[in-house]
């Protein structure tokens, strides 16, 4: 019962905040709604028994990515920023207008229809199954997977992150104005 409740809450949070991300005109609010959506996804992970992934989601996204995005919004002028050449080049406004949304929704519809086909098949193949509330610890298993089967990915991800760090630091470093 509790798990169902958690699922409902998380799903509501996820979907509601995700839609809010799409409709709000304020990039700052968008970021915060994204945070809500990501928290909801963490909740969904928890209902799936993926406690470690759930907490990782919170740690990396809430603690890292969202803060970084908030910083980036601030560093690029905050929400009041208006495209410099907006009216000169006739570009769409930064947060979109009805036309861009129309295109987006159209493509979204295409994806929806496409996926409905897939999900129909899946729902036949995997009917609803209620698991017991057995949530075994995933941490140890993930640890074993990480240093045995996926050890290469594990080590390479550190190299990837190093590369990301170096690359982003080079890009973002204050430098002479050319």
């Amino acid at each position: 019962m509790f798990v169902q409740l958690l699922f409902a809450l998380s799903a509501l949070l996820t979907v509601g905040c995700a839609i809010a991300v799409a409709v709000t005109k304020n990039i700052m609010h968008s970021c915060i709604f994204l945070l809500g959506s990501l928290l909801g996804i963490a909740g969904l992970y928890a209902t799936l028994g993926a406690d470690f992934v759930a907490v990782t989601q919170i740690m990396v996204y809430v603690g890292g990515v969202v803060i970084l995005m908030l910083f980036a919004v601030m560093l690029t002028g905050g929400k009041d920023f208006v495209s410099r050449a907006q009216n000169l080049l006739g570009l769409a406004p930064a947060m979109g207008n009805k036309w861009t949304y129309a295109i987006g929704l159209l493509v979204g519809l295409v994806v929806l229809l496409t996926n409905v086909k897939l999900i129909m098949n899946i729902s036949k193949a995997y009917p609803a199954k209620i698991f017991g509330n057995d949530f075994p610890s995933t941490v140890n298993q993930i640890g074993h997977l990480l240093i045995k089967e996926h050890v290469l990915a594990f080590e390479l991800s550190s190299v990837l992150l190093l590369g990301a760090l170096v690359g982003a630091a080079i890009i973002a470093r204050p430098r002479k104005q050319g």
Partner: protein
Amino acid sequence: MTPAQFDGLMPVVIFMGLAVLLFVGGHFLSVLLAPKKPSHLKSTPYECGEEPVGSAWSAFNIRFYVVGLIFIIFDVESVLMFPVASIFREMNDMGHGGYALIILLSFISVLIEGIAYCWKKGDLDWVKSYQVSAKNNK
């Protein structure tokens, strides 16, 4: 199986709910109790008594971003290290301690490279980058 095993997550949700409740309740109380005498002067942002000039939402210094950047990389690396650290003792007891140690150390050594790089390039210096940009602006 003890009955409470299924909802270890319940307290987490309850506490979060309590936080929201407390917030809403506190607001409610404050609305009930607090006086409401709004005036323009009261609701101007504080700027040492002067008239506020412009918006505070302007472009900030990029140093903040560099710090955030280093943070997120380290954050992610520590996330990946947590499961390995959790099973480290177990591996050691099973006699694979050396293997786990090598895996962990090689992971950490890459981490150290990252911090060494940033250190050397002055990304960790709050003031230096400031001076550099000041010098370059001349």
